[in-house]
């Protein structure tokens, strides 16, 4: 399901290969939210996410889910940032949760702002404040809290959202505390920062590993609610994660039984030819080469 990646121009050959790999993976995984009728696997994936305090993001059921790939946002200073995914979830209770996703595969954070030429001259955005883009996680967390999103549909759907989270998805085995801590520190230092901003960041920046999805998809029971086509999609997702070496840590479980190996050489029969005695070509006293030879 790299439809999203292709539709959003992410697999253009002019993009660097590592970026294309990352965007295609993001497209595969988060397309699950779009294409599956039953959200139990995507929600189980989200529920594996933890913040720095070790608290999980719990979301058991959702009545509606909207997914927007590569949404752009701005603080009105003519510069924009692009997140990877925005997932808008309506809980059964009616509460809405907005999850902005930053996904990494092999590269690190992009801690410099990118400038979109099409927005640099846009009249649509007013100057709101002096937020300077720097740390990617800080930018995206602040983005989901306070920024203006380019797409009118996103702006409309963000109205009435109760909880706004950042989800950082990486290939790590354990939560990358340093990177998240740096993001929170960056938020603290921003001129517009209030104490509640930092508290919100500490509570609402979550991390999950691509490997957690592989762990979920390795349990055969999760496929039960799905149609044959959906199961095939999930099987393929699991296979993609394995091909990308993003499988769940389960050591020493895939080894084959072996018999002893014995050498396939029989006897080492070399027929050696007799040789005459070797005479040095060097003069033995002076060490000078004897040019008679």
């Amino acid at each position, binding site marked *: 399901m790299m439809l999203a990646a292709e539709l959003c121009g992410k697999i253009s050959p002019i993009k660097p290969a590592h970026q294309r790999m990352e965007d295609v993976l993001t497209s595969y995984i988060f397309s699950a939210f779009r294409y599956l009728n039953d959200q139990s696997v995507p929600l189980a994936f989200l529920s594996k996410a933890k913040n720095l305090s070790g608290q999980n993001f719990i979301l058991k059921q959702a009545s509606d889910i909207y997914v927007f790939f590569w949404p752009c946002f701005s603080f009105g200073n003519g510069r924009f940032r692009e997140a990877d995914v925005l997932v808008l979830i309506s809980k059964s209770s009616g509460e809405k949760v907005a999850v902005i996703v930053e996904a990494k595969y092999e590269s690190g954070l992009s801690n410099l702002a990118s400038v979109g030429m099409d927005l640099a001259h846009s009249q649509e955005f007013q100057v709101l404040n002096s937020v300077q883009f720097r740390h990617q996680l800080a930018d995206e967390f602040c983005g989901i809290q306070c920024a203006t999103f380019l797409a009118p549909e996103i702006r409309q759907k963000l109205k009435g959202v109760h909880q706004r989270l950042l989800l950082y998805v990486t290939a790590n085995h*354990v939560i990358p505390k340093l990177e998240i801590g740096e993001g929170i520190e960056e938020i603290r230092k921003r001129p517009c920062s209030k104490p509640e901003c930092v508290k919100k960041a500490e509570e609402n920046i979550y991390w999950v590993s691509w490997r957690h999805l592989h762990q979920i998809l390795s349990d055969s029971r999760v496929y039960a609610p799905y149609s044959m086509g959906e199961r095939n999609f999930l099987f393929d997702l699991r296979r993609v994660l394995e091909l990308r070496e993003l499988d769940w*840590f389960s050591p*020493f479980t895939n080894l*084959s039984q*072996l018999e002893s190996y014995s050498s396939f050489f029989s006897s080492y029969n070399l027929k050696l030819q007799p040789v005459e005695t070797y005479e040095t070509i060097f003069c033995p006293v002076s060490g000078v080469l004897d040019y008679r030879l």
Partner: protein
Amino acid sequence: MGNQRNIREIIAKTMENMYQIYRDVGHIAQIIEEKMRGEGFKAMGDAAITWAVSAAYSKPEDWLYRWFARVFLKEEKPKSAVGYCIHLGKYTPEQEDMIKQLGISFPFLNISLLENFEKEVKTYWRTTLYDTLWGTGWHGYKDWVTKDKITDKLVYGSIKVQNESIKYTTYFVDLLALTNEDVITRLVVEPMVKMFNGNEEWVSKNNLDVIKLSSNHI
């Protein structure tokens, strides 16, 4: 012909097994690396985890990667280090005997605190530190490493590093016990952090499920 097919299968399975084993060892190393980084430690050198192997066609006995080590440092104590070495096996008979005498079986890790360096640890060759981590606690070559005290889980001694006598505290863990992230934290990462911070007897005091050393030496 039947024998050849059998050998073919054995080779194929051996290669597949080695690939899987290396992948699993790699995962364990990555988890330890990420957790130690999260605890504020910096790994010494680049990403290299093995050393002392040969690529020469004439030395096939040295081609196989059998040991994997990492050294971790922190600015607060520049003359100390912690680290581990994973030992997969196929050592010399003499070395295997030294290991067996302590009641240890392959594959295993030794995890060590190294102290009393004369200079900052980061100034030493990384491979020298790897050699050190490889031999602490079990090697019997007394001109190189001593075992001054052996308890049920810990070995204390000194090891020569570039003509200096470095103090070590080492314990051992069964590699096959490291089946998930929590166990790796409990048996490897947390003790390394605690030992570095002065709690050398963490594994004993907390009754951790590490390898109990042979009572012949206690």
